């Protein structure tokens, strides 16, 4: 799209953030332009062209804009700037560094540099002159918050290159010319540590993308134990408001076993982002002992920020994730909420007067969502190393109805479904993930099954399936009890129901605000599941159905005290011993 002369144009029409521009030359779909409004320059993106009219969505408020204002087209798509210094930054949806902005209020037309141009980075070459290289290959390494940040051959380059020269180990700024590469025709290209990439296109600098097979630990029991997500896997969390989507997402982003966590706050509450800003610099990363914020990147487009930038924010986040994946790192990307992104698409589609699909969403919604989810995944890089993007999106179904278009479209794209249940939330059974309706397709993958067998235990998968059966049978028993009455069913129905309650209270429910219970390592999960199943497998003698509930309540209380205690601590073992004797008394 690069041209010698910049195309310009004049504003011909304005409806909210949709502006129609009369252009004097070629324009490209999704090209970026700037609209002049007094001394401000408003960034916009072309979303439709009709004759000499380009329809652009403006990433800012159009208040005060007049017909006839000058527009300059930039000859490129919406791009992000990639280089060392992205970690622990807070960006808006267009990758402006929010901390660099002045004043309390956001100023229209203020764009800030995502990188620090002055900072000196400790640079260590990895490639040597004469090496043959292609896009995405590692040239050098700099230390970014103790993370080996790879400097790569720009993704935009095609073909093979020879490394002509590279600067020696030392400290340099990101703009320093660190290497020269030569293409097959002998043309030299100078490289710095910075490159740009258009957000709507996927970075494909890898060799292959196999099916994901490694478990990604999140510390959340009802995910890891019952419906695990894999490294490079995709999942989504739909739930009506008030069912704990955000608390769950924050728990995952705090605890998950990832090198880099990217949080895309997409059209959500500003105070939720502030919570991350406030808490993450204080919280320790259990794996490195450093602060959580050091491995975190936040893309904040809160619900009151301009709608068009909301759409861009998820792409910005995904592109940064792809950049870090190409360095061989494990990236976890969380987007809250993808429904707001879909609504942004709907608002524009509506202003463009397109024929609407279901619920007035654009017809291609499903395709857009699938395409986005497909950018996640586990990859083998060209040098044989591995990297991954695990993507978990939340969905806010309108009216809590899971048949609405965004949920339906996402269901087709994501492999794990963590449905939040209003009933569970109402009775404060958190996390409110429905144990029966939720699923992880990964449990059916033979490679995942083999991985679990090897890394957790040989009987793990069997135990998990058994726990699921007990939950299902418990639900059926409860329905029978509700229909026939407590004394209208055999006592075994009560026992069956209470065994499922036992799993519910001990394994599924987890206190996200308790220091110990909030995160449960796999070893502990394995131990607790085995312990719970021991009780579920035992046969007890009860004289009356009321004995069943009071017995299991005592058992559950004992287990809960164990959950609140440090694993294998003195207190933990004391509760366990008490539990064992309570159980022994009842055994047949």
């Amino acid at each position, binding site marked *: 799209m690069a041209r010698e002369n910049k195309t310009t144009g004049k504003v011909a029409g304005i409806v909210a953030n949709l502006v129609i521009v009369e252009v004097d030359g070629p324009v490209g779909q999704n090209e970026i332009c700037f609209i002049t409004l007094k001394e401000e320059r408003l960034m916009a993106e072309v979303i439709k062209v009709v004759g000499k009219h380009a329809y652009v969505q403006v990433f800012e408020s159009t208040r005060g804009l007049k017909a006839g204002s000058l527009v300059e087209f930039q000859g490129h798509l919406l791009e992000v700037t990639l280089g060392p210094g992205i970690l622990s930054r807070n960006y808006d949806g267009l990758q402006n560094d929010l901390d660099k902005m002045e004043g309390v209020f956001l100023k229209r037309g203020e764009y800030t540099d995502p990188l620090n141009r002055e900072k000196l980075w400790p640079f260590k070459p990895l490639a040597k002159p004469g090496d043959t290289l292609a896009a995405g290959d590692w040239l050098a390494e700099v230390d970014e918050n103790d993370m080996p940040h790879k400097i790569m051959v720009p993704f935009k380059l095609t073909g093979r290159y020879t490394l002509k020269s590279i600067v020696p180990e030392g400290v340099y700024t990101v703009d320093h010319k660190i290497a020269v590469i030569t293409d097959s025709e002998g043309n030299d290209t100078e490289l710095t540590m910075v490159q740009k990439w258009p957000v709507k296109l996927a970075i494909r600098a890898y060799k292959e993308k196999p099916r994901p097979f490694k478990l990604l630990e999140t510390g959340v029991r009802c995910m890891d134990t019952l419906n695990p997500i894999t490294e490079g896997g995709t999942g989504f969390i739909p739930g009506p408001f008030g069912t704990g989507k955000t608390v769950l997402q924050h728990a995952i982003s705090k605890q998950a076993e990832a090198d880099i966590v990217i949080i895309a706050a997409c*059209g959500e509450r500003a105070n939720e982002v502030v919570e991350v800003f406030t808490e993450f610099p204080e919280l320790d990363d259990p794996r490195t002992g450093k602060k959580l914020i050091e491995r975190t990147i936040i893309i904040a487009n809160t619900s009151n920020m301009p709608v068009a930038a909301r759409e861009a924010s998820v792409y910005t986040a995904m592109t940064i994730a792809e950049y870090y994946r190409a360095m061989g790192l494990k990236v976890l990307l969380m987007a809250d909420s993808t429904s707001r992104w879909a*609504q942004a698409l709907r608002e524009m589609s509506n202003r463009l007067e397109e024929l*609407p699909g279901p619920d*007035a969403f654009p017809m291609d919604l499903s395709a857009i969502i699938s395409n986005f989810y497909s950018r996640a995944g586990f990859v083998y890089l060209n040098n044989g190393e591995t990297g991954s993007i695990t993507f978990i999106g939340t969905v806010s179904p309108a009216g809590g109805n899971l048949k609405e278009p965004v949920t339906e479209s996402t269901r087709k794209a994501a492999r794990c479904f963590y449905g939040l249940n209003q009933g569970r939330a109402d009775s404060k059974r958190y996390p409110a993930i429905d144990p029966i309706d939720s699923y992880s397709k990964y449990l059916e993958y033979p490679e995942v099954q083999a991985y679990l067998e090897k890394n957790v235990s040989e009987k793990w998968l069997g135990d998990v399936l058994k726990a699921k059966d007990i939950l299902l049978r418990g639900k059926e028993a409860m329905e029978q009890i509700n229909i026939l009455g407590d004394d209208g069913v055999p006592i075994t129905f009560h026992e069956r129901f209470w065994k499922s309650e036992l799993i519910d209270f001990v394994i599924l429910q987890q206190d996200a605000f308790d220091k110990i219970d909030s995160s449960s390592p796999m070893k502990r999960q394995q131990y607790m599941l085995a312990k719970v199943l021991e009780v579920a497998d035992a046969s007890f003698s009860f004289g009356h159905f*009321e004995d069943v509930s009071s017995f299991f*309540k005592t058992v559950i209380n004992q287990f809960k005290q164990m959950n609140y205690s440090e694993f294998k601590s003195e207190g933990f073992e004391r509760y366990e011993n008490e539990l064992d004797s309570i159980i022994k008394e009842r055994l047949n």
Partner: protein
Amino acid sequence: MESQAFQKVYTKLTNITKATVTLKADGVGYDEIATVHGRLAQVVKIMGNDITLQIFEGTEGIPTNAEVSFLGRPPQLKVSDELAGRFFNAFGEPIDGGPEIQGEVRDIGSPSVNPVRRKQPSNLIATGIAGIDLNNSLVSGQKIPFFADPDQPYNQVMAMVALRAKTDKIILGGMGLTNDDYLYFKNVFDNAGALDRIISFVNTTENPPVERLLVPDMALTAAEYFAVDKNESVLVLLTDMTLFADALSIVSNRMDQIPSKDSMPGSLYSDLARIYEKAVQFPSGGSITIIAVTTLSGGDITHAIPDNTGYITEGQLFLRRDSEIGKVIVDPFRSLSRLKQLVVGKQTREDHPQVMNSAIRLYADAANARTKLENGFDLTDYDERTLKFAREYSDRLLAIDVNVDTDTMLDISWELFGKYFNKAEVAIRENLVKKYWKN
């Protein structure tokens, strides 16, 4: 209306609908206001030199040769300390017979706060109502609506909360208030001797509905003046946001936009978020807290207005009439304050989080027992006890006429636990049980 030197008067309208007029004019800015036939209007669409204006009062009686002049600015409000104690209409003009306000002119609908410049809300707002303070604690900088059916006493509860909360200013944004409710607020604030810290922007049912669209922005511009310039804590009351959303749908309908769910405009979420997200805690100490009312039709929260609101606000409060005790209570199941975690057990007693959760769980067990009873099944001893507990819990804690401090609420809860249950049934962490259990 003020006039400016360069002002040109147009007299040829090309189109008139129920809410908008279109004319040819040059050099007009988007969102700019104008007067049409003496009525206030705002630019909503520009196509070449065709300008479409939304007339807030409606277009009844406007002729095609009406005089149109553009004011070259968005809607504005004059802000100063003189605002305190005054009543205004949706355009920010005094309606209490007092003098015009002298002060700095500000555009309404100003930009958002940079999220990194916000502070995490952390100050408890105590109301004395246990249904709120015990189960759904409010925090300054929070935004939370009452979801209520039109027949429920939401305006009364809101006025009570406003007066008990210790804030520097209270700003009332009334949209489609009946004249009776308007006078009710006026009287309550007057009787409490609090009038000097209250500012009201009121659109009553007697005023045209589209005017309402200006009320929240007017109220919040005033709120930002006190919170940012004066570092004050400001409580904004918005009632009723359902009527605000209805006005949005009228305008979008007149502009031929494709409606999405429940005939609401596709941008409803963004439109509501723009207002509610003005709730903020500033590092300098100033804060804006928003308590709103969203009336429901027949308790349906899946309708687009409450649904979108629920996704934006930090929780919601439900009122319900408990027929067993004959009082209105704050429903513990459906109410939620998302920010309560920031204060419960931190600014309140350590046992607060667990007591709150256990009491609600036991209350839920009572609801199950009631279902059993209604279906004609025998109740167990445990069921009987939960029912007795629920009744007393409802009467002594959930009812909106309760006015005690949080420690007392917790003590009452422990008393009820001890009265009706054993320790395993309550299932609270052992060290707390040891300290607080009452027999």
